[in-house]
């Protein structure tokens, strides 16, 4: 039988009206905004703060992602921050006193070409040097771990092996948001929904307040955690971000008995699949090519990923698509996030996590809180500063991040 989910909780946070002023305001009540507020309160004693969310709590990408958590990125900078996130995921259920079903069922990244094989083996080597658990599996080992995968060589792109990270997995994203929100509320953070930031108040180059549909709120500091809308907010504040927002879709099937024991991703044929705790097959693939702020994309993108899924998993051929949806992801040219200071004094930005920022939530929150509280980078987010686009110190993670996840 599929796992039972925890009961839906009663109200976990209050819905206060905005106060006239705060020590810090976080814009965006998704996972990153909530995690940032939590660590600001917990690690830096900043409790006179608010999270402003234009819609409902965690109704953006936090509610729309496919919850894959892993840390097997290529470069040192990425491995460091994603691995730190993974270590936090391992302790957060206890720390937040909330079991959000973090299931370390492992993640496989398939290789289908010689180029894939070389790149994958290189990444396994890099991961091991960085203390990230990673191994290379040959097709037989792939089949042992995931018996429903088709490893025959009579398909267009046969499976030539895979990287495997045993500690990776999935979690219940909405419960993660609620877990952070409840703790924030307990620590005195105001979580304010239906509060859209429409502009900023500045004194010279220093931000001193935010304008919202519920009035102007004064604040010492502003932290932007607005994912797909980051450049819209930056523009309001008077600076640019090297971000392009794209629709990213995902879908689920109806409920099935447990058939898929791990998470399988394929950059090359372009699909990834896991089976949610309740039993749905959860699938996703790439972004729609064009810029878009609609939370929907084109059907041909879904058709393409279904074709890939059915070739890799013949038993899915008779499953049905139950629901599809889209989010708005904030992509950068090097497929790495942007975290740090901005050209506006006392305004900080955490964005560009694109198609894969759910897994980074705890580390984004922890390090961004440090940056907001101290005004300086955290050791782990320092390489991800906006300046890298000027210095040229890009962190090219297209290899590890090429399938949206």
């Amino acid at each position, binding site marked *: 039988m599929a796992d039972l989910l925890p009961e839906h909780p009663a109200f976990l946070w209050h819905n206060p009206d905005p106060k006239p002023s705060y020590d810090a305001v976080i814009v965006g009540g998704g996972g990153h905004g909530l995690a940032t507020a939590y660590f600001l309160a917990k690690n830096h004693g900043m409790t006179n703060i608010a999270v402003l969310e234009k819609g409902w709590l965690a109704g953006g990408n936090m509610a729309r992602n496919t919850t894959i958590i892993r840390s097997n990125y290529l470069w040192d900078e990425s491995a460091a921050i994603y691995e730190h996130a993974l270590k936090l995921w391992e302790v957060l259920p206890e720390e937040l006193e909330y079991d959000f079903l973090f299931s370390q069922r492992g993640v496989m990244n398939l290789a289908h070409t010689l180029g894939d094989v070389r790149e994958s083996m290189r990444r396994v080597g890099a991961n091991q040097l960085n203390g990230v658990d990673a191994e290379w599996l040959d097709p037989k080992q792939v089949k042992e771990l995931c018996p429903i995968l088709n490893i025959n060589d009579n398909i267009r792109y046969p499976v030539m092996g895979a990287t495997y990270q045993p500690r990776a997995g999935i979690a219940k994203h909405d419960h993660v948001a609620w877990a952070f929100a409840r703790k924030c509320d307990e620590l005195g953070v105001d979580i304010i929904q239906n509060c859209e930031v429409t502009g900023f108040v500045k004194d010279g180059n220093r931000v001193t307040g935010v304008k919202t549909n519920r009035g102007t709120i004064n604040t010492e500091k502003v932290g932007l955690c607005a994912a797909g809308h980051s450049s819209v907010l930056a523009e309001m504040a008077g600076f640019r971000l*090297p971000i392009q927002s794209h629709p990213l879709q995902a879908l689920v099937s109806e409920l099935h008995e447990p058939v898929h024991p791990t998470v399988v991703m394929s950059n090359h044929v372009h699909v990834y699949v896991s089976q949610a705790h309740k039993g749905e097959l959860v699938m996703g693939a790439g972004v729609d090519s064009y810029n878009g702020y609609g939370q929907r994309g084109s059907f041909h993108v879904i058709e393409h990923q279904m074709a890939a899924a059915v070739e890799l998993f013949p038993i899915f051929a008779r499953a049905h698509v139950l629901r599809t949806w889209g989010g708005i992801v904030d992509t950068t040219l090097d497929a790495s996030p942007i975290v740090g200071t901005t050209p506006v004094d006392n305004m900080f930005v955490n964005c560009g996590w694109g198609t894969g920022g759910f897994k980074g939530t705890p580390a984004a929150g922890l390090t961004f809180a440090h940056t907001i509280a101290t005004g300086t980078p955290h050791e782990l987010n320092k390489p991800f500063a906006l300046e890298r*686009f000027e210095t040229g110190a890009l962190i090219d993670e297209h290899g590890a991040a090429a399938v949206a996840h």
Partner: protein
Amino acid sequence: MLLISCPNCGSRDETEFHYGGQAHVAYPENPNELNDREWAEFLFYRDNTKGAFAERWLHSTGCRQWFNMLRDTVTYEIQAIYPMGAPRPDKAAPAPESGTASTAPDSTTTGTAAPSIAATSLATSTAPASTTAPEGATK
């Protein structure tokens, strides 16, 4: 799936096209004089407009020609399709007088086979050519 009206081939499925990002980004006129900040702007910074956005598309499995499109990034509605090199139709300066309206778009996108695009085009021919920055976009 967008239904895109190629200026040369007519209405085709989005899957025949390739997206080319923001339109009207000119190659720096004096590359040697750019500092790092300016290079960063040229290489990595593009507008990310919420609303009407001018962008390039390539009809990659059709005529293999580039063209510009004005599209709403929220509704995805295609508001205009116009040739490379022509100014953005919704920002075009009003035509000074009739008779000067030739925009001299790059010759590759014009041709006798082109169907009328009047229905999807806002005034593609109302600005003098001299106001348009040269674009290094057809690659």
